[in-house]
């Protein structure tokens, strides 16, 4: 195992799930405690917007602000524990060949696109629509109230000491990946971002590969 990236050789043949998720598509899946989810940025610079919920209590969901404060840093990376509202981890980043992921940029929506880029973007596809569609399809009461803080894997949103914030070119590249170990049973909701108006997807949204290994 490499201490720098947490890499452990895992064979795809041992996986219990492997799928390629095209840009603009969503994915809802429950991880059992001890399972590992790998998200592979197949073509590079693709933002993967992701929500996490305690599978036993969806109200107890990922909290970006608690996570950042407790780790003392605004970027997620190897070793980051993604905390729920109860202060305990849902998943931990156990491998990361990219190095830095955002959790302050939120997910794109039709409404925020109009504010950021203008009326002509109102009917472009957006992550929060994907989240809503997937939440409703998953059922069990998930709805708009559950679209809270998300992680943007492979996305680069640097903050400046003077109080600025920018969306800039990704630090990712084809084949970079991140692995998440479920610290408890966790529902994962993903939108593979269709945003075309900023560099988060290098203006060319592309598929990502999702692989789950059993505990």
């Amino acid at each position, binding site marked *: 195992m490499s201490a720098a990236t947490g890499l452990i050789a895992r064979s795809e043949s041992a996986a219990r799930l492997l799928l390629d998720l095209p840009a603009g598509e969503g994915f809802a899946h429950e991880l059992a405690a001890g399972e590992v989810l790998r998200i592979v940025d197949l073509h590079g610079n693709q933002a993967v917007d992701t929500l996490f919920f305690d599978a036993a209590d969806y109200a107890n969901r990922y909290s970006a*602000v608690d996570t*950042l*404060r407790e780790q003392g840093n*605004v*970027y997620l990376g190897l070793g980051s524990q993604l905390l729920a509202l109860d202060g305990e981890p849902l998943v931990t980043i156990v491998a990361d060949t990219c190095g830095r992921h955002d959790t*302050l940029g939120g997910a794109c929506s039709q409404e925020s696109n109009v504010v950021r880029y203008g009326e002509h973007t109102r009917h472009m596809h957006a992550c929060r629509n994907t989240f809503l569609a997937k939440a409703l399809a998953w059922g069990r009461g998930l709805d708009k*109230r559950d679209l809270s803080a998300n992680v943007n894997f492979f996305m680069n949103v640097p*903050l400046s000491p003077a109080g600025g914030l920018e969306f800039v070119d990704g630090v990712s590249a084809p084949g970079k990946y991140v692995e998440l170990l479920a610290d408890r049973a966790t529902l994962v909701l993903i939108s593979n971002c269709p945003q075309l108006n900023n560099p988060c997807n290098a203006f060319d949204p592309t598929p990502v590969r999702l692989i789950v290994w059993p505990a």
Partner: protein
Amino acid sequence: MTLAPQEPLLDAILPPAASLSRVCRRGTELTIVDRDGGANVSALMYRAEDPLERYCMPDTLKAQHVSRLTAGVALYSDMGRVLASIVEDTCGWHDTIGGHCTPEIVAERWGARSYQEAGNQWRRSAREAFLVELAKWGLGERDLVANVNFFSKVAVDEGGALGLVADHSPAGAHVKVRFELDTLLVLWNGPHPMRAAWHAQPVRLVLEACGAAGPEDPVRLSCEENERGFAATEAALR
């Protein structure tokens, strides 16, 4: 009912570790005064007409390319509308990425105190207070989102390390927030969750009528994004 413009709609002291929730109407402004210095006031906001629409930290930050809140910054909802604007600010930076005090933080850092042993000096956390206030409006844990921390500065270094800046808010500092939509406001007055020492003192709240943002309003004109955000806000009132 008519009110003289100089007559406040509310002029109250919020004691340490106390909370409140109320609807603040469009065209009113709330001045929060850090009378003694070093205050932190944690705040949540929801659209009163439909609380499914709520303050959205990420949309606020990315629309305006900021990671701090100060005068000229609009506080966006998750539906592309402006719930409120910061129209005056004497301390230059208010935090919205640090979160709020949980019962665990209070217990581990300062020691839990119960009402039975401490009376009104008990240290109820922001999390507990928020959930109680939200419950008064039929809201709950699923409605807890990233909050604002008025009077607190959390800065990052080049590597992204977070730090709470000590002694950021001097005695007498104030911030003035104008509401652009009828807004359910929830406040808790107590220490920032990154603060080492328990430090809480009263803050003064003054709510006054001020009128809605005009066409030349500096918050509206501060960036193209805000011009579109204010237009979307006004469109929702038609």
